[in-house]
């Protein structure tokens, strides 16, 4: 069957969502994955954006933002940031979510703030300027702290899969184990990292992410080569079922502008 790696990633991400969940999707491709789940197998998935746009589905293609007309046109309610990110996300009410990452480490910590070339901003003894300044946390920090669970969707490249992220914009399991407890986070932490090559899930005790499954077009070797830490492989590692014709047709109805079909 003809599908792109991005489409497989979106479908694998969407399969992480169940009917009836209260969910929040970030902007961009992760939003397509979420709305695909709603269309494909979770009709009672309740989704909203961090701007407080409720009850809507994208019209006319991938929304340019969490607040533009493509996502606002058929909304049932508009509220605000404190309502969406505070009352629903940071409070611990949201069941599931998707966030993206520029850089990620083995404990699921996400960096979307800047690249200091493998160092931390203070490794020189004081804060130094980033080599490349990125977008910052947005609403992902609230999701990482507050959501009962969430999926991190990210392109699988060695430069992104670092042993340690340069900057923690959105905390995963920090240094692993029970490290989240130090900060009294209400949410459960990341449940999966879904990439363009496969799916990683955390070890229940150490919270280190290990390879759970890989896509039909990928392999354990390819994934290890593209991971910046010594990736452990689950003893039950398996192949993810490829998209069905119906799954793909549903995805392409959501992704009208073909954002996921670009190679």
């Amino acid at each position, binding site marked *: 069957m003809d599908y792109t790696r991005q489409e497989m990633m979106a479908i694998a991400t969407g399969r992480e969502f169940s009917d009836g969940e209260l969910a929040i999707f970030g*902007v*961009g491709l992760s939003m397509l994955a979420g709305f695909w789940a709603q269309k494909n197998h979770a009709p009672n998935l309740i989704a909203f*954006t*961090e*701007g*407080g*746009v409720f009850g809507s589905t994208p019209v006319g293609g*991938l929304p*340019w*933002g*969490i*607040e*533009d*007309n*493509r996502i*606002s046109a058929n909304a049932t309610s*508009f*509220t*605000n*940031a*404190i309502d969406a*990110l*505070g009352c629903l*996300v*940071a409070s611990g009410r949201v069941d599931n979510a998707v966030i993206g990452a520029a850089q990620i480490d083995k404990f699921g910590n996400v960096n979307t*703030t800047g690249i200091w070339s493998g160092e931390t*901003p*203070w490794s020189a003894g*004081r*804060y*130094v*300027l*980033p*080599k*490349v*300044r*990125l*977008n*910052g*946390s*947005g*609403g*992902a*920090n*609230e999701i*990482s*702290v*507050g959501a009962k669970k969430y999926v991190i969707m990210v392109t699988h490249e060695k430069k992104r899969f670092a042993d340690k992220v340069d*900057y*923690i*914009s*959105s*905390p995963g399991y*920090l240094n692993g184990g029970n490290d*989240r407890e*130090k*900060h*009294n*986070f*209400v949410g459960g932490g990341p449940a999966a990292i879904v990439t363009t090559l496969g799916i990683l899930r955390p070890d229940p005790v150490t919270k280190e992410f290990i390879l759970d499954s890989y896509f039909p077009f990928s392999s354990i070797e390819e994934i290890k080569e593209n991971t910046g830490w010594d990736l452990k492989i689950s003893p039950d590692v398996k192949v993810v079922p490829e998209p069905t014709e119906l799954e793909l047709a549903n995805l392409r109805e959501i992704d009208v502008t073909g954002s996921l079909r670009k190679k």
Partner: protein
Amino acid sequence: MRNKLISMREAVAQYTWDGMQYAHGGALPVGTDSIAFGKEMLKQGRKDLNVISNCNTQQTNLMAAAGAIKRMEVGFAGLEVYGFANGLKRAVETGKTILEDYSNGSIPLRLLGGALNWPFVPATINIGSDEEWCCADRPDEYPCETKIPRIKDPYTGKECGAFSVLKPDLAAIHVTMADIYGNAIMLGTEWSRYELSRAAKKVVLQADFIVDTDCMRQYPNLVRIPDVVVDAVVYWPLGAWPQCSTGVYDSDEKEMFAMNAAL
């Protein structure tokens, strides 16, 4: 009741100055923002600005590119699906603008704290990540203990953080419609404009439409910014261009890319 309708030139001359703490709203990267007001500030040569942004927008992207922003606090520094904000990105990488990172949920909470005249706001988000530990204002302190200091919840004894509150000198806020007294209706997400309009020392509205006060009396529930908190009103159709004003005009895709490419 006082007629507060004045020209854009007058509003900027009267309510802005070099080195001020300036906040803009909605401060949505693709959605609504007081972009026309920001352009007029640049025309009048304002500089050394200390900017409070829920998110970066094309307004702050332009101001940073023009070298007018000395320091800025943000929840998100990009342009969502339109990409990185080139002007701001370069200003940060070259050290011209000090960028202090928070998240999309914490900026509105800090504004709410300012609006309520609270001494601080309890922080359950942004702690346990580099938004807490890394402070661009005090680059020698790491991990920084003064940006979001830890406090003990007097009821449970558990630890959380304390956000400083925000009371900007001025908020320039884009609204869909206003009357000449400053009663305003916002279509689409409010984002943090409700809190911002109460936190700022002065408030100037720029409105796509000026309507009769009788319109407000038809839907008083929709008037989330009442005249009592507003100092001046400017009539400026398409004032959020090239971004969108929900329900009135969409983001101008060509101009969004062209403008960012030029910065």
